[in-house]
């Protein structure tokens, strides 16, 4: 390491293997390398330990509630902290309905945005548009909630819900025959399942659309050229050449959006109304699994109460994990083979 030396002594050459061995083992580098390796391994193991810890804490925390109610916990609908009777059905219902409502609204829009950005818009617009839609994902949940309380909810109360009731109110005629309330029936509070679904949709769109963009970009260019060469219009090219090839990945993106919607807490808590009741109408207030934890956890008196809330958390954890794994697998089936891209 002292610069080029004009004369190499022959005995050094003869000893070079020993020398190398010596350098690898003896000097500080062998010890230091091992220490470094183990330090980095410890950081990696931290990730494993954290997930293990999450599972352990959720399981041990929910044991009390599990022993008291068993699997029936998720099929009971009373939520009575005073008499220590707990059932999670209204929360499960609220989570499922608000999330699917969100997907129903978000998926067509998100795919439309992705199609526009990847296939239709002029090149100079691509970057800014992609950045702007990603910006939607950077807004914190609590700010969406704030906006929803003061802007979206009054709009829904004054215009949105009366409009839905007038033009889609006829659906009640069908549901009444089966003994349910219609989806657009009842007083327009503004706050309720519909507001939660809309705000969730806005929050889910950037995820679905960025994954859709990613898998659409992964479709080989030759596919597009081949379809165009056959005389297809641009839309026919997108439909048969791109969307059809990317559908598994798009489905993955949609499911990833579902995972986000299921676990979303603050914005939903602020607009869903927080009433543990099951109502068929989208105008009625509801409650979700995440919001009941957010609202009641720090005030939960009694071990069973706390345990019931942790069990809801455990259920939420298991469902989102399954959903996320499924989604990643689907995205992977389309994007494998293409170079890794940073998820910025």
């Amino acid at each position, binding site marked *: 390491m002292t610069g080029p030396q004009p004369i190499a002594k022959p005995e050094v050459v003869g000893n070079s293997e020993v020398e190398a061995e010596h350098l690898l083992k003896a000097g500080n580098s062998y010890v230091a390398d091992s220490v470094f390796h183990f330090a980095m391994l410890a950081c*990696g193991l931290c990730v494993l330990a954290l997930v293990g810890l999450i599972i352990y804490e959720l399981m041990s925390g929910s044991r009390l509630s599990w022993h008291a109610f068993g699997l029936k916990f998720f099929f009971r609908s009373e939520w009575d902290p005073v008499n220590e009777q707990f059932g999670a059905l209204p929360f499960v219902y609220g989570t499922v309905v608000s999330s699917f409502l969100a997907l129903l609204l978000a998926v067509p829009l998100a795919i439309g945005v992705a199609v526009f950005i990847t296939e239709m818009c002029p090149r100079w617009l691509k970057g800014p548009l992609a950045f702007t839609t990603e910006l939607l994902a950077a807004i914190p949940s609590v700010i969406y909630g704030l906006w929803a309380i003061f802007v979206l909810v009054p709009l829904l109360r004054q215009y949105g819900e009366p409009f839905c009731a007038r033009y889609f109110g006829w659906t009640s005629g069908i549901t009444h025959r089966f003994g349910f309330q219609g989806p657009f029936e009842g007083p327009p509070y503004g706050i309720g399942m519909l507001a939660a679904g809309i705000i969730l949709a806005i929050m889910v769109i950037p995820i679905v659309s960025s994954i859709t963009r990613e898998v659409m970009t992964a479709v080989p260019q030759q596919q597009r050229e081949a379809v165009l060469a056959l005389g297809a219009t641009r839309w*026919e090219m997108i439909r048969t050449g791109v969307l059809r090839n990317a559908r598994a990945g798009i489905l993955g993106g949609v499911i990833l959006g579902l995972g986000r919607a299921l676990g979303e807490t603050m914005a939903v808590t602020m607009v869903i109304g927080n009433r543990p009741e099951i109502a068929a109408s989208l105008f009625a207030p509801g409650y979700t699994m995440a919001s009941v934890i*957010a609202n009641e956890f720090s005030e939960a008196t009694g071990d069973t109460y706390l345990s019931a809330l942790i069990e809801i*958390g455990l259920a939420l954890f298991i469902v989102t994990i399954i959903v996320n794994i499924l989604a990643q697998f689907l995205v992977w089936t389309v994007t494998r083979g293409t170079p890794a891209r*940073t998820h910025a």
Partner: protein
Amino acid sequence: MPETVTATSDFAAAPISLWRRGMNFFATLAAAAAVVLVLLPLGAVFGYLVYKGIGSINWAFLTQTPKPVGEAGGGMANAIAGSAWILLIASSMGVPIGIGAGIYLAEYGRNQFGNVIRFTADVLNGVPSIVVGIVAYAIVVLSQGHFSALAGGVALAIMMIPTIARTTEEMLLLVPNTVREAAYGLGVSRWRTTLSITLRTATSGVITGVMLAFARVAGETAPLLFTAFGNQYWNWKINQPTAALSLQIFTYAISPFDEWHRQAWAGALILIVLIVFAVSAVRIVASRGMLKGTN
């Protein structure tokens, strides 16, 4: 995986009919409309934040603690400082562990065991923030006996680690192997190569990942509800309940007082400015190129 196109007979021979041209036009229109519909709430959120928030940001808001209900004035200074304090605690735990895990995955983890950690990191990334809050409560709050800044920091750190680990790994893998080999060839030890050559080359990419994780947790509210808990007063003790900007926005937003609503908007504006600033900084660093060949 790419299928062969089979539906071509529909449009192979005939000249483009009015119907097909119409469909094409309609689809383009629908996609453009979707973009407008998606940008609408974005514009509305930002517009309202600025419109409602800017009037309420003043010197008092930035320097005072909250006043009791009914008294005008007061501010969120303690919440802004509390957020910074919690984020500092979170970063001091999350950033080193995250980068370390990323280094492990990139430099030592190209094997089955590495895949397990990689998969686990992705699982951890998908855990809802409220669940992370429960876990931080169980680990820190229960053992300490009270809500604390530390508990909030732990919750946010747990959320930062997987993001930082995965981006660090991706960035390190972008560094060509020839660079590592050149260092080894000069007799530089492996740990030194990793830290001073590989990590150094990937620095701006790693910073991007850290900033993204930071921006992601900066606005988090759910995991702080029952960990940091919030506080009406100044607090710098690591084991005491601490105010946070996002918590304060939440409390004020769901309160019935106009004065508090006004302050919630102001707080939200400050929060979003900080986050957008972080994200744009990331964008600028990223567009300079983390390495040759990225983006």
